[in-house]
Each structure stands twice: as C-alpha cells, then as structure tokens.
C-alpha cells in the first residue's frame, strides 16, 4: 500500500459499526479494498455482513464523512460480493472487545454442522458477563441480523451472541 492508502485505512479505523460501536469496519472485515482511481478519487470497496444489513447504509455514509473530514474530496464507496463476508475474518482482538462489550463472540465456523433439526449438539455459550456455561438459546434471531439471543441461568441476564457465518 502507498503512503496515502495507509492514511485512508487509518481514517477508516475510526468508522465504527453503528450497532456495535466498539468494533471498527476494518477489523470486522467490512472494508475489502482501498485504492485511488485514475482521476484521483478514493475508492473504498465494502462487503455486507448480511445481505439485508441496514447498518451498511450508515457505514457507507460514515466512511464518506470520515474521509471527507480527513481531507479527501472525491470518494466512491462500492459494495462488492467477491468473497462472502465471514465471522472467520474477525480478529482475536475484535472477539475480545465483543466479549468485554457484553456480546458473546462468534466461535469457529463449522461448514459441515448438521442441519438435521433438533439433532444439533450446541455447546453452551459462555456468558459474557459472568463466564458461566449454564446458558441457553432463547432465539436464533436477535435484535440485528447478525445476533442471536441467549439467557444465563446463573447470573440471570439475557445476552446476545454474534452468530457464526
């Protein structure tokens, strides 16, 4: 990367996920490429976490604003699908931040986990608040497209989990 592309990436590290503001769009793997077009415009390629994720609109605007504030005039943000976004791209640091924020981080993705109904042996998630494994799933679909809802039987708190995808 050239010197100025480094600058862009640094500015993008200040663009946080609107729903999970402890994570930035770079460490989440949402930003895929950054480069300069022949006419001098900055082109940022982003990929959606989930097909219908409504936060992507906000992220797009925030990227333009962050780069504009950083002194860049001409900015193009493109949505690309070359590689399907995966929680595997999330760094260890990002997972730790999620846990500290109160969201159980995604485990490792098992492509071949059985889809046969009610035969899955889900290992109970660790509660991000008290660490107990005495937890249960309350809904596979949560407040956002990327999260599921769980309950800790020990500290009696509900918590969210960032689903593996």
């Amino acid at each position: 990367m050239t010197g100025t592309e480094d600058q862009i990436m640094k500015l993008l590290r200040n663009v946080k996920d609107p729903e999970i503001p402890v994570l930035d769009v770079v460490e989440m793997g949402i930003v895929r490429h950054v480069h300069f077009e022949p006419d001098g415009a900055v082109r940022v390629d982003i990929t959606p976490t989930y097909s219908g994720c409504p936060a992507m609109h906000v992220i797009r605007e925030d990227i333009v604003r962050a780069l504009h504030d950083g002194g860049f005039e001409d900015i193009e943000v493109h949505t690309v699908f070359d590689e399907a976004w995966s929680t595997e791209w999330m760094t260890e640091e990002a997972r730790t931040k999620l846990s500290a924020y109160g969201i159980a981080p995604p485990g490792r993705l098992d492509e071949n986990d059985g889809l046969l109904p009610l035969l899955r042996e889900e290992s109970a998630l660790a509660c991000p608040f008290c660490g107990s494994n005495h937890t249960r799933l309350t809904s596979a679909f949560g407040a956002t497209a990327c999260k599921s809802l769980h309950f800790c039987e020990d500290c009696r708190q509900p918590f969210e989990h960032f689903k593996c995808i």
Partner: protein
Amino acid sequence: MVETTTQTALFEYVLQLGDDALVHGHRLSEWCGHGPYLEEDIALANIALDHIGQANALLHLAGELEQAGRTENDLAYLRDATAFRNALLLEMPRGDFGYTITRQWLFASYAFLLYEGLRHSANKTLAGIAAKAYKEIRYHLRHSSEWMVRLGDGTAESHRRAQEALDALWMYTGELFEPPESELVADGIAPDLGALRPRWDEMVAHVAQRATLLLPPADSFMATGGRNGRHSEHLGHMLAEMQILPRSFPGATW
C-alpha cells in the same frame, strides 16, 4: 466453452431469483408485529430482512444486465404483477403460523440446494451474491425445519394445521423445479434443477417423517405460470400494498 446464453435470458433468470426473494421477504414481513410471541416475531422479520437484502442485490444485478436504466427500486416498485417472475408458492398469503412455516420450510429446502449450486455460477457477481445468501439460507432452513417438527409432532391442533398447510401448499412445489433455459445450465450460470430434485425430495421426506406429517402423492397436480408472469389473484393485492408509497410519490428519495 462457447457462450450461448443471451443477455435477455440472463436478465430474466436473475430477475426470477430476485423476485422469489422479494415476494417471500415481503410475505414474511407481514408478520412483523403479529408474531405468535416476541422472539418468533423477530425471527420472521430477520429472515424477511435477509430476503429483502438478497432481492436488493439480485435486482441491482438484473438492472445492470438489462441495460435499460432500471434500478433495483424501479424493478421492485414499478412493475405490475404480469412482469414478476416469482414462483406461485411465495405469493400465497401468509395464512396462519403453520402455513407460513410450512411454506418457508418447503422454499428454504429448495433455496438451500439452489444457492449451494449458484455459488459456483459462471457469472461471478451472481456467484458472490449467492455465496452470501447461501449462508443465511442455512439458518432459515434450520429454523423452519425445526418448527415443522415442533408443529407436526406437537399438539393435535398444531399437527392438524401443519398437515393442512402441507396439503394446500404441495401443489406449488412442482414449479420450483421447472428448468431454466438450457443455455443457462450449459454455460454454467444456473444449476441443473433436475439434479437437485432427488435431494430436495430426500430432505423434505426426512423432516416430514420426523414431524409425523404425510407428504401428498408425488404425482399430484402441480400449478404453474409464475415463471411466465401468470400469477394468482394474490400477487396484485400484495404489490398494491408493497408499491403504494413509491407509486404515490414518484421520484421521491429518503
């Protein structure tokens, strides 16, 4: 390989995929605020959102392929029912919870196999969209399959409603396997639905058995027409609700 697929055939195919996602997404969204309990209300809305996002990407691609200046919004909101290419199964009204779940299960089983194949499409953009959608559809399939077992192997009432839904919806499943244009398959753009059919039969039979539900006979009458714009009376009403806002304020933007 000599490519024989015309631009028109490709556009129509992607439009069909987009319309399936859009119409099913809309039907699921009709449950928002009306779910049997909060967590399931949220689940159906989440699944609807996945579908709408997929439709957005697919219709955007369709617009680019058509090269007539239509955007994904033009395609979603300004076409009449005869121009839609969704399968009839998806435009059926939402019915009761058992009906919605049964429809979702039948479609998700199909979409899971279809998108598994589409990930390898010779059209790279379509392959990328499909790779994303496939991962989401796995969750939809799991959700609806588990519900089928709960409902079918549940109370006398849930069993009755699930069986009635299956009996009513079965006639719309044949259309899912109507083959796409042969060039699309030959050129590696679309998977061969004939090859997917036995796997769908097996998946559906397995879940039905666990759910203690009976599948209607394999040679039952099958409805057709959606892929050619011949839709049921239900689609027009659905589109009227779905399209009223942009049609009332042409050109308006957020």
